[in-house]
């Protein structure tokens, strides 16, 4: 039986900090929330009276909307702070911005930030629960969780599955959260990309993870391929010669799909660069679970908000 009492985190900063058991608790908790979505009234009163501030320092469509919907379906109040229209433009520091939200008694601050570690700064400086919605190229824990949830939903397990994470791993917070989560749940993870996009000494952190530069070799017999977006905005210099060459070497297309298992799952955290890392026919194929990922994202974020809310004191309201 699921014992939510075993989950005693106040913040969700990364999957690195969660145990296998804690990850499983989140996955299990998300299941009943997902069932809600088939009803006409998709709302429960669980977090009524609580407030969730969405502090996004970077553009986002799905993560922000997903968190907002998740909070609303739990009956929490949400408030959006878009940096372009806030006092951050007047030079307000991250800590001061967060302290302002804390003073308004935000129970949760969901933060997306261009720089790694920004959620840690908040967790150290304010009393609200902090949820990392993606920081730099450190972690994006709810994305990792929803990827794992989606894989488990389709495959019934995670252990011993061959999961290929493909593309710009160096700049990817999604890759890091996937790596922590998947290795804790004992999947066989293969990282595939050009050597310039593989993070330094990754093998020292994840000794059982395989690194393969050749796409065809990497995806042979794969159960899952998680295709990452090429993050042009984070590259300080050319880490590969051209988009054309990248696409030729690492673009996932129908032909290559045949090398993997017939029932291989194709995941992509979005937004997609169609035609670069993934062709449209693959993105829209039957193997693709990209839309299910989005649906599951809401359920996962409900589970996370709910579980974290058990560990904040009610006196704060």
């Amino acid at each position, binding site marked *: 039986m699921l014992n939510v009492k075993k989950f005693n985190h106040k913040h969700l900063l990364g999957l690195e900090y969660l145990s296998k058991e804690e990850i499983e608790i989140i996955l299990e908790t998300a299941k009943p929330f997902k069932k809600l979505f088939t009803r006409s009234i998709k709302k429960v009163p669980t977090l009524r009276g609580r407030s969730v501030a969405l502090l996004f320092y970077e553009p986002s469509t799905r993560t922000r909307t997903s968190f907002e919907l998740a909070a609303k379906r739990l009956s929490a109040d949400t408030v959006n702070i878009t940096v372009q229209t806030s006092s951050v433009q007047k030079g307000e520091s*991250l800590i001061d911005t967060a302290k302002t939200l804390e003073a308004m008694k935000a129970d949760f601050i969901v933060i997306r930030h261009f720089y*790694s*570690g920004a959620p840690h*700064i908040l967790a150290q400086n304010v009393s609200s629960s902090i949820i990392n919605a993606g920081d730099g190229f*450190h972690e994006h824990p709810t994305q990792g969780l929803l990827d794992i949830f989606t894989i488990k939903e389709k495959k019934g397990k995670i252990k011993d599955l061959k999961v290929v994470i493909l593309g710009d791993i160096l700049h990817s*917070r999604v890759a890091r959260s996937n790596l922590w989560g998947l290795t804790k749940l004992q999947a066989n993870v293969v990282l595939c990309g050009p050597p310039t996009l593989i993070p*330094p000494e990754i093998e020292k*952190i994840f000794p059982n993870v395989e690194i393969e530069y050749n796409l065809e070799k990497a995806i042979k017999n794969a159960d899952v391929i998680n295709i990452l977006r090429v993050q042009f905005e984070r590259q300080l210099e050319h880490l590969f010669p051209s988009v054309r060459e990248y696409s030729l070497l690492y673009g996932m297309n129908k032909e290559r799909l045949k090398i993997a298992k017939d029932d291989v799952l194709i995941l992509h955290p979005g937004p997609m660069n169609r035609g670069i890392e993934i062709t449209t026919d693959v993105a829209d194929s039957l193997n693709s679970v990209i839309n299910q990922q989005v649906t599951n994202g809401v359920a996962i974020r409900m589970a996370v908000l709910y579980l974290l809310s058990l560990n904040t004191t009610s006196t704060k309201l």
Partner: protein
Amino acid sequence: MKLLIKNAIVVEPSKNLEKKQDILIENGKIIEIKENIKLTQPHKQINANNFYVSAGFIDIHTHLREPGNEEEETINSGTKAAAAGGFTSVFCMPNTNPPIDDQAAVEFIMLKAKNEGLINVYPVGCVTKLRKGEELTEIGELKKAGVVAISDDGEPVENSKIMRRALEYSKMFNLPVIQHCEDKNLSKGGVINEGKVSTMLGVRGIPKESEEIIVIRDIILASLSKGFLHLTHISSKNSIEFIKQAKQKNINITCDVTPHHLVLTEDYLLKSPYDTNLKINPPLRTEEDRISLINAIKDDTVDCISSDHAPHTKEEKSKEFDLAPFGIIGLETLFPLCVTFLYYKHKVPLINIIKKITNNPAKIFNLKNKGKIEIGYDADLTIFSIQEEFIVSNFFSKSSNSPFIGWKLKGKIKYTICGGKVVFDSTNPKDPFYENKNFYNNKK
């Protein structure tokens, strides 16, 4: 009036001396060193029973931040921190705003130091105008104004040809060139050591090779130019290897390391993720590098220990990790860290540590009558205990960006004497500093 230091254990590396003796000071000079000096006429006396006395410490790498960033440190506050740390001389790096790249800037520092400083301040001048790495400064004029070395510290002199010319030209003035070794193309965007930890934290790394490439290039240029090269804040094992080999070939180079590279490693960033007081350039490296630095202290490949005292305000250091400035303060923790970790933990003889903060810096940078306990030398002396323990908490520096807050360390400065004056007296905690009070009175 004469000042007599009674019953201190004199540590003088140049004479390989560690022995109880008295020291007599008059008119800012040491006039007598022997056992049991007896004076009949009235005099001042410090009873230093059981404490050690050495020549006043010399820090060859300090950022005093004046002019330009007085909110972080001033010549007054920085020299107070230095005096409290046992230093009687500091070299101030020229990456101020404006930088110390002409005679007037040097004179400003000298004047400020004379009026508001507690100890000797030796300016380091820029190698290139505005530290841009393009055009040499008027090195002869800088020397005349009082610089003891030239450096573009904070930035390397990247252009090999400029570096060659700097080494060639400065040798006629006997001025060492202090190089901050960093290939900026390799280190671009980096904030900590490249490797396991940078990957875990998702931040860009600074590979140790970015230091090593400049170390080896500059060794080659030093060999070509026959100039005086000093490589500062060395952090990697391979750099040490290259320096060792160069010294064996009698190439004219010297180097220093900082206590934080001798004590900390990148692994501290896993215990305290994104702690900006662990953001330092060069970055904290691996345990393997750290051990090699300690061995290089023991075998004298390393000539000096320097603080790289880099004050920053709380606001600056509270920023996102990528945006926070590099650097930590170090003047007040250098010696206790050396005592606690080098002397007690790694069994480095005290005399070896003292050599690297007194004799060697004075010799390398041609400081006249400094760095030794010797008759006729300036009465710059530091009296300290190596047993006394304390917890690092408050600083005299204007800034408190230190990763060592809360650490229990051994080695406490009791008195700092500069030019025969007691500039720091720990037995008087309410008013420990001797300041140029006349200056302040005149100002009013």
